[in-house]
Structure formats: C-alpha cells, structure tokens
C-alpha cells in the first residue's frame, strides 16, 4: 500500500517537472530568421587573408599549410621565378575534403590563411565547394585578423654550413613530408625538403 502511494507520488513529481517547462520560454533559435552568435574562433571555411592597406595576399607560398593539412585539401602551385623566390600561381582549397581541423591556420606564420566563421555554404554541386585563389581572397576580405609579425629574414648561411646542416638532417624524401596521397600529387618535385630554403627554415623555428 505504501509503495503504491510512493509510486504515485514519484510519478506526480516527474509530471510536475515536465509541466514546469510548459511555462518557460523556449531556448531554441528560429533559424533562418534568427541566428545564434558565433564565437570568433569558430572554425568555418578556409579563407586567404590580404594585407589591410595594399590588398595583396599575405601568403608567401611557404607551403607549410599544405604540409600541415592531414587530408590534402590544400593544393598550392608556386614555381620558383628567376629571383629564386616562389610566386604563388594557384591556391586551391577543396572544402569537400577539408576536415576543418585548423592545422593550416596554426602552421601559418604570416597570417595568410584563416578559418573564418562562415558556415552556410552548402551547395548541390561539389565543384562549387572547390575554391580557387580569387574566391578565397574575396571571402577573406572582411574577416578580421591580427597580423603576426613577419619573422626577420635570417642571413643566408655559407655553403659549408649549409652542407653540414644538410648532413644533420638525415631524412630522405621517401615518405614525402606529410603528403598523404602521393600518387595524386603531380608536382611532387616541388616539395622535396632536402634543400630547405629560407621560408622553410623560418617555418621550423
């Protein structure tokens, strides 16, 4: 008898808890008329950042973001010109492969690439989500960022020191640094690490 009353009392207690919620305002947000506030660090799409005054891309084609990406969503083509520096020719981010991890943003020393907070970019066609350099720059124009100080250029080491440095690094480019699917990478020869150039050295600092 007592357990019957106890049971009924607990059932009514449960009903009281749910009925209390009938009087409360809903906590949901009516999308798309209302939108929730997105924190500024939220990782949405990848964009390329440009200098605030000149409007040029901050990217120096150091290829660190490409090496950092675990899914090879970033493809950069930056052949060396006559002045031995790389010139950015094409920068493609395939958002259908990107896993939105943010490793590219963490790897970049020049605040050239960032994960902006935009998240509404679904489409019916996969090719719409593969963004080239112009689209990336355009989407990154209004993204606020704090520019990192560019690390000072190190003096180029003399030839003997360079050879000694090359000897110290014993890695061979067999398992090419962080390139997950080599067979689809046609420009493999551009990424050999055994001649670290200036930008790579800065990246390793």
């Amino acid at each position, binding site marked *: 008898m007592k357990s019957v009353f106890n049971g009924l009392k607990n059932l009514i207690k449960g009903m009281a808890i749910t009925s209390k919620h009938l009087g409360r305002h809903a906590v949901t947000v009516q999308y798309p008329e209302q939108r929730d506030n997105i924190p500024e660090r939220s990782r949405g799409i990848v964009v390329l950042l440009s200098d605030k005054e000149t409007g040029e891309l901050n990217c120096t084609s150091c290829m660190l973001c490409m090496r*950092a990406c675990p899914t090879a969503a970033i493809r950069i083509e930056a052949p060396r010109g006559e002045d031995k520096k790389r010139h950015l020719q094409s920068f493609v981010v395939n958002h259908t492969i990107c896993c939105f991890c943010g490793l590219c943003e963490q790897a970049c020393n020049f605040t050239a690439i960032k994960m902006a907070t935009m998240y509404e970019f679904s489409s019916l066609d996969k090719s719409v989500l593969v963004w080239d350099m112009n689209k990336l720059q355009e989407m990154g124009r209004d993204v606020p960022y704090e520019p990192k100080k560019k690390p000072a250029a190190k003096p180029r080491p003399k030839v003997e020191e360079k050879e000694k440095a090359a000897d110290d690094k014993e890695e061979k480019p067999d398992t090419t640094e962080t390139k997950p699917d080599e067979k689809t990478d046609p420009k493999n020869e551009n990424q050999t690490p055994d001649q670290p150039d200036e930008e790579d050295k800065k990246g390793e600092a």
Partner: protein
Amino acid sequence: MSGLLTQEFTVNMGPHHPSTHGVCRLILTMDGEKVVKIEPVIGYLHRSMEKICENRTYAQCVPLMDRFEYVTAMSAEYVFVNAVEKLAEIEVPERAEYLRVIMLELNRIASHLIFYGATAMDIGALTPFIYGLRERELIIDLFEMTCGQRLTYNYMKIGGVSHDIPKEFIPKCREAVKIIGEKMSDYEGLLNENPIWLARTKNVGVLPTDLAKAYGVSGPVLRASGVKYDIRKNDPYSIYDRFDFNIPCRHNGDSYDRYLLRLDEIRESLKIIIQALDGLPEGDTLKKVNPFNFKPPAGEMYSRIENSRGEMGVYIISDGTTKPLRVKMRGSSYNHVQVLPKVATGVLIADLVATFATLDVIMPEVDR
C-alpha cells in the same frame, strides 16, 4: 500444451537503429518474445584509422584521434598526445595541464549527458533526451569559444594545448557548472524514483563481478559491478592526483546502478572542474614543438586514461621518424559489446534494449 510445435526465428536488429548507439548489428535468435541468442556484428564503421595514422605526422594524427571517439573527442586526443609526450619526455607547462583537465572533465559531463538522454529515449521517455542536450549546449558553447569547434576539437597539441582560454571562459564555465548542478535534481526527479523506470531497469542486465573482470570491462560498467577501479586514482595521469574527488561505486551491476553511477560521476566531475578553475596558474599554454619535424625517439609507449566509457588506450610504436610506425587504439566499448550476449540472453527484447543502452557502447570506438 506439450504438443505445440514452436520454432525459433531469427531477427536482424539491423545496423540502422532508432537508438543512437551507432551502427551495430545484432542478430537475435528469438523464441517468441525471449531472446535466445545474440550475435553482435561489428565493422560497419571501420575507417582503418590505425592504418591512416601510419601515414601522418604526429601533429596530423590528432584530428584523426578526434574521430576515433567523437563523443569524447578531448579524451581521445589527450590519450594520444600523452603517449607521445611520455615517449619523447616532453614537459608540459602547468597551465596547459590545468586546461587539459578542465576540458577532459567537461567532455566527460557532456558524454554522460548524452548517455542519460539516449538511455531514457531507448526506454521510452522522450523528454530527458532534450533536457540532456540542452545542458550539453552550455558545455559545447564553452568548447566553441575556446578552440572553435563543437565536436571535433583538435585542441590538444603535443606539448600543450592549441589555444589559451578567452577571458569570458572562466565566468561562463562557472555559470555552466552551477546550472548543470541545479538541473541534476531535475533529471533525478524525473527518472530516478519513477516506478516505471525502476521496473524497466532494476535487476535488468545484471553483470556479475567475476564476469566483468573476465571480459576486461572498465569504467562505469565495472564500477557498477562492485570493483572500485578508476585510472584517475589507481594510475594517475596528468595532474589528477592534485584534486580531491570520490570514485562512486555500486554493487548490484544492473542497469539501474549503471545509470545512477554515471549521474554520480557528473557530480564528481563538476567538483573537479571547480577545483581546477580555482587553481589555474598563469603561464604559457604550449611548449613549442615543431609540428613538421617532430621525431620522438624510437620506442614504444602505451598510455591509458579514464574515458567516460572506460579505459581508453593508445599504444604507439615509433621508429624515430616523423610518422609513427604503428598506432594501436584501444576502446572500452569493444569489450562491452562482447559482454552483451552474456548479460542479455534469455530476456525480452525490451530488456535487451535497456541493457544495451546502459552499457553505453559507442561504435566508433569498437570499429575504429
């Protein structure tokens, strides 16, 4: 009655379930309403993560470990990072350790809230799921504020954490802890003493202590069967030995105990978070380690932590290059799925559903 010919039939509780346990297929042989034999079939979520890890540098493995167990992604990342740090003997700054503990405990609470909701939903009460998710929103808002993502964080780095907490984190975290503490009485009042809930979960799916030990069960399932073993106390990692918290333990081993134990664990985690917030030191959050050229010394290392489901472990064999030679991931749900046929045979389907729900099996851990 003896002349009646009955026949057992096979029912496929297919990979797609209305329950939220992921893609686990159960082949049930049934005699009327009773389940005579259960055969779990796994592998529907196999993504060959261990093989993929062999072709990624250590820094690139961390987002992959997120996906190893996405409900408690912080723990999954942490166990890997911990193994690498132990192997390479990297000293992590104090502030980073405190932040890691806060994130791990917040993740534990979020996982237990999902457990609460999913179990209630399987047993028929549809509202607690929404209540659990509503509180979980507070936690994942904190995560989004810190590292940018709500589910797959990529927050732990080898040598520390990737971002420092923003200044609004601490007051919001305290508020979230307060709100969750208050709502716990709601959750308990709704289900704990409910006679229907008791009828569905008491003495259902009893896991005896010796069977639990024989199958290598860990975590709340083990502690509900009477064995007081928690890696945070028995084999402390990170800075857990500095905090004061209890290990709840129950003795019946039935579904009701497993459910109650996880609610107790939420309260203990809240205590740990408050202590960590109070003791948070200033300083760096990351000991800089080159993500591209990081080469731990050749060797092997196993690291284990107390995940919200049990013991989660990672065994790394390094050959001195930038990529690991072998990464073996150990998830506790693999053992729990094996326990299911022992515990849920000879009962009605409804009991099988209740038992499977309280074992809290997550398929990405099983299948990797």
